[in-house]
């Protein structure tokens, strides 16, 4: 950690050294007293309380629920929840549809995330180059879909894909985007449409923060735009790209709204199409204990995947 944070942590050390240098005798310096305790409490407490209530407690509660099983006295007896150890997790790992849905979103992410971020990077670089005129217009036009909520975007594209109602019925009557083979990629297109502009803006802002001198020199040496982009700009904005990639990975694993909407357009989208749909379907059976176990596995997988990705890219950068 650098500059401003370091400045604070250095403070106690500095005073201690100063005291020693001044030859002031005395007891071992006491633990530095926290100043402004009341203010800190006022600042941190509201968020801390809400974060605990609506993040930490639910996580704990999900884990707790996932360790319970329903026990019935006979076939029609009253149901009671008893501790079942990891038996819900055994069910999770035996659940074929759930793992199929995980495979589906992983395939989705492996294709959609690189395409989306590739496009976002391309547009950001073009906006940052002298090649494009009307930057303000393009920036805004590409960003407009981000203002469309996922549910609404899915409804719109549902009509655009429809064989009869689509303005592109010449295409949609020949290719059925809502078929079992294609519907996953039809949804991928909806997600891409919504989020390219958003990711483009994050990357573009990172590009704007690069001091011009850094590539002015390369330009004078005769490097073309492509070369500058590849060798100077992209390495410098890697942190921004990693950030967008992590958010995209998280988003992909959580896919819910778009497929849920597509269920009314296409029978190929089943009630266990994505992991989150499986959670929702399972909880409305209701089998909350199993649904809680699904949630825990999913959250853990998301966490591990994004964390691994982060560490992996950091190591690559360090090399």
């Amino acid at each position, binding site marked *: 950690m650098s500059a401003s*944070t370091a400045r604070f942590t250095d403070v106690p050390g500095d005073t201690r050294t100063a005291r020693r240098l001044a030859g002031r005798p005395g007891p071992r310096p006491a633990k530095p007293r926290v*100043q402004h305790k009341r203010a800190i409490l006022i600042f941190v407490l509201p968020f801390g309380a809400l974060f605990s209530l609506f993040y930490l407690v*639910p996580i704990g509660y999900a884990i707790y629920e996932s360790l319970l099983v329903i026990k019935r006295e006979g076939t029609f007896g009253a149901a009671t929840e008893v501790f079942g150890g990891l038996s819900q997790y055994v069910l999770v790992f035996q659940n074929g549809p759930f793992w199929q849905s995980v495979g589906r979103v992983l395939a989705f992410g492996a294709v959609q995330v690189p395409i989306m971020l590739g496009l976002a990077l391309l547009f950001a670089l073009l906006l940052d180059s002298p090649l494009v005129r009307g930057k303000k217009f393009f920036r805004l036009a*590409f960003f407009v879909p981000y203002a469309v909520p996922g*549910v609404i975007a899915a409804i719109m594209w549902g009509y655009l894909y429809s064989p009869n109602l689509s303005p592109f019925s010449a295409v949609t009557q020949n290719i059925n985007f809502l078929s079992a083979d294609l519907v996953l990629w039809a949804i991928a297109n909806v997600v891409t449409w919504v989020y390219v502009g958003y990711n483009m803006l994050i990357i573009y802002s990172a590009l704007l923060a690069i001091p011009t001198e850094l590539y002015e020199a390369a330009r004078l040496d005769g490097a073309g735009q492509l070369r500058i982009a590849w060798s100077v700009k992209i390495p410098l904005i890697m*942190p921004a790209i990693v950030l967008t990639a992590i958010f995209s990975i998280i988003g992909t694993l959580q896919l819910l709204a778009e497929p849920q909407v597509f269920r009314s357009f296409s029978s190929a989208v089943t009630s266990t199409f994505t992991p989150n749909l499986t959670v929702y379907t399972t909880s409305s059976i209701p089998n909350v204990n199993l649904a809680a176990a699904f949630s825990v596995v999913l*959250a853990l997988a*998301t966490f591990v995947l994004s964390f691994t990705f982060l560490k992996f890219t950091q190591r690559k*950068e360090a090399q």
Partner: protein
Amino acid sequence: MSTLTPTPGPVRPARRIRSTPGSAPRAQRENPFARASAMIVMGVFTLYFLVPVWWLLVAATKDRAQFTGTNPLWFADFSLFQNIGALVSYRDGVYLKWMLNSALYAGLGALVGTIIAGMCGYALAKYRFPGRELIFNVVLGGVLVPATALALPLFLIFSQISLTNTFWSVFLPSLVSPFGVYLARIYASASVPDELIEAARLDGAGEVRTFFTVSVRMMVPALVTVFLFQFVAIWNNFFLPLIMLRDETLFPVTLGLYGWNSQVNQIPVLRDYVLIGALLSIIPLIIIFLLLQRFWRNGLSAGSVK
């Protein structure tokens, strides 16, 4: 170089001054072929991004017969206002109720959420206290925990205390924005000088007052960014209301339109309302983004660069 770990470098809000775009000698050096292909790429994708919205706009101005009978990408008789009238009077104006709910969930939620995230981020940036790093790391972990994974356990908890199917069951969890704390902390440590806080202290202002009168002003770009992205997140939120709410009058507009859309086959008139309702529901967000773009563009760079 790290990404999610905070590395507030030297003060960065000073933005680089861009050379005037296409200043004569520079522009001439660019290969005309490269220039043309760049413009073609941008043009094609402008169509990709805008045609669906254009189609929605056109569709919203047509009555039902013309929706299927005329060119879907061009206007016929202009019945936008009749359509809006029909939409807002359908079922005692339930659509307006949904819009109002969305505005409350998102507007009020993002406002309160931004204030508390801003305060927490500020404290983490500007004060030294035990557990500071722990709190920050836990919050950072919270950024990686998907909100949808919390929806189900939240539902279970809220049903224990009979709070499901209430305004609060959607509103309260939406207040928490770990990413907001992260952004506020980074921005506060980079752009609120310690000297300023010290000066306010010497003037006898309390810490809390200093924050609200002095420091907040320097954090405006970050706070506007946090507000906007939380606003969008709440406005777009679907899983939490889907799982919490049964009472139609509490729905946000996304959930309401979703419900109508899944009944289109039984009640065909709903298709008209879904389309016009979809168009009206994206207008507030576009307006907010346009009005505040000066702020959030600066704020974005603070979050992503470091």
